[in-house]
């Protein structure tokens, strides 16, 4: 991590706060219209997808229905659910868009998400041992973790995690690794497990039981389409999220260097630990503007469609303070993620010989 004095950190804090305050003062109808338009698009895609699905015996309709439902889930999870739950639209005082009551269209229970993501991940971003999102306690992505033979197969784990991403996210709070280490018992996790089964069961019932059953004669087609839509969403959201923190230049931190940190230090860590990728407006929408992961981590509760507008200002602040602003094309960023997963599956000696750039 870049070394900065407390005075410099406090200046960084002031500079970033100024960007934030400017947006906060300007929140209004434009932001409300934006999110309502997105919600409208989501409803149209979901209703359209579900209505078309039973006619999926016509192949092009099957593709259209599956893609529509997949896009609807992506938009609902990424641009609506994730962002609403961060409190980005709480100021609108609309009960349908309130962070504390919103429940999203995925197996993960919103209360669990608010704890593991909003609190743990956004507070302890990329601190090894504290941010359980770093590798999801499943993948070795830095040399802070000692190599173990089981890591050599972690690319398979990665593919599995991406495929079943909503279930992985849903079970994240289970903390299997801590249960395995004996730090907590299964009993401690019963309340969580109950919530997970309720929400996960609800989602599975909807997509894999109810909608296929009500269209009984074509149940296999509807089931296949719903599985496909969930898969599209799983692969895309997993990919976007991996690009946010596991690219080549995304830094990791130790608990010691973050102990009792100032707000300025927290800002510095968010800037260094996150990475953006470039793309069209549509790509940004589908990523829930997590393509602006840096801006999101610095200002998690500003409406996400504002990130493109403030990006230049954030870059200027980074430049002024000599902080690396991590961005690149989607292909380039995702390439370094895959490389990181692959190279850290190797023992350190071998990795340093093959991929010396992955520190």
């Amino acid at each position, binding site marked *: 991590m870049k070394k900065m004095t407390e005075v410099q950190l406090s200046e960084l804090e002031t500079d970033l706060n100024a960007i934030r305050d400017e947006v906060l003062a300007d929140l209004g109808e*434009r932001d409300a219209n934006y999110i309502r338009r997105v919600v409208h698009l989501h409803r149209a895609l979901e209703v359209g997808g579900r209505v078309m699905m039973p006619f999926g015996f016509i192949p092009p309709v099957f593709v259209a229905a599956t893609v529509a439902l997949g896009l609807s889930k992506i938009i609902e999870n990424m641009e609506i659910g994730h962002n609403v739950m961060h409190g980005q639209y709480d100021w609108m005082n609309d009960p349908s868009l309130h962070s504390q009551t919103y429940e999203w269209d995925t197996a993960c229970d919103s209360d669990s998400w608010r704890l593991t993501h909003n609190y743990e991940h956004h507070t302890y971003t990329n601190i090894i041992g504290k941010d359980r999102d770093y590798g999801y306690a499943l993948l070795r992505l830095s040399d802070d973790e000692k190599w173990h033979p089981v890591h050599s197969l972690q690319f398979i784990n990665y593919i599995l995690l991406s495929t079943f991403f909503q279930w992985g996210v849903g079970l994240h709070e289970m903390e299997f690794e801590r249960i395995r280490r004996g730090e907590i018992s299964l009993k401690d996790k019963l309340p969580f497990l109950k919530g997970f089964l309720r929400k996960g069961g609800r989602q599975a019932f909807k997509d894999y039981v109810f909608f296929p059953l009500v269209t009984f004669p074509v149940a296999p087609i509807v089931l296949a389409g719903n599985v496909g839509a969930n898969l599209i969403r799983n692969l895309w959201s997993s990919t976007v999220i991996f690009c946010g923190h596991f690219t080549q230049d995304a830094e990791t931190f130790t608990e010691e260097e973050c102990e009792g940190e100032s707000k300025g230090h927290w800002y510095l860590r968010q800037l260094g630990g996150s990475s953006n990728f470039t793309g069209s407006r549509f790509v940004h929408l589908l990523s829930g503007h997590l393509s602006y992961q840096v801006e999101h981590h610095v200002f998690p509760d500003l409406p996400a469609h504002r990130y493109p507008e403030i990006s230049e200002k954030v870059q200027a602040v980074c430049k002024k303070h000599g902080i690396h602003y991590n961005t690149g094309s989607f292909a380039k960023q995702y390439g370094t993620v895959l490389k990181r997963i692959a190279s850290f599956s190797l023992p350190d000696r071998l990795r340093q010989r093959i991929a010396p750039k992955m520190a």
Partner: protein
Amino acid sequence: MLSRTERTSALQWLGKQLFNREDPAAFFDPLLERINPMWVQQHTPARVERIEDETADTKTFVLSPAKRWAGFQAGQHVNICIDIDGVRCNRTFSLSSAPAQWHNNGTVTLTIKRLPGGLVTNWMHDHLEPGTTIGLGEAFGDFLIPDAAEPLLYIAGGSGITPVLSQLDTLAAADYQAPVTLLYFVRTQADIIAAQKLHELKQTWTGLTLNIIATNESETPRYLKEADLDDITGVETRRCYLCGPKGLMDLATELLTQRGMAEDRMHSTFFAAPQAALDTDSLGGDVRFSNSDISVSSEGDAPILEIAEAAKLSPRYGCRMGICHQCSCKKTNGTVVNRLTGKSSGPGEETIQLCVSVPQGPVTVEL
């Protein structure tokens, strides 16, 4: 509450499973709204039919609520919600029309005076246009006319006349068989709301005695006085309805109590949030917002809603005057004082209204 009372039924349960929300019907609102705004399910939509000028600073808004609206009794109020610059604002107003009008032609009226500096009332005066829709809640309130005919006394001030208009209209239509007196205080003659309506009522209904008093047309303000009550036959035994500014309400209550009127025969309805006299020295304390992991200290009679907002939190809120319960939130420990009643809460876990709850010592709320 603005959300409609939801039926507990199999369909309701299924809707929750499919759409992940407590009000599944509202899932389709974004689509329905584009087709016909009157189909919105989240709240009862009401179309603005006409806007009529009453005085220089008061307008009557004629609304057509969607047919599913449950109706009201004369003297009740409703919450309305309006989006202003992206922010949903909830406010409570009395209905000024009689229930018969809703039954006969499906309209209700709100008669609203501009509140100096008020966001919603001024916006409604300046920007609300016929043809648009606003959100309407179900009617509530216990400012109701008696079941059996008995002599009545109304004391109203300014726009406090609105629930009284609804009641007088209803009484007149029912050919009320007991004397009714209205003492209506206005600043000047130009500030009389529904002057024509009151005049018509007086013409057609012999049981009504109308006494409109302008308070600010003489050198010294002309407030309610003993003599006003002396003129009313059997004033002590009448059932009395009060609605108006706090000064008038306090004065009327005092004069009537002196004459031996029992408390349970005096009915008042909100006009502006009545405030209990609080001993500010004992108030304030550290407030912990447990879900956000934020602790702040507070002083004086600031309610927790304002304390939370000062701490950059955005809790849900509605009327901000203790009526609508939109801001209700669980307090896990500590004591709060209700700003309206001056009563202290228990120390344990309970649901409180953030907008009227003032901390008395350290308090923890789930926010």
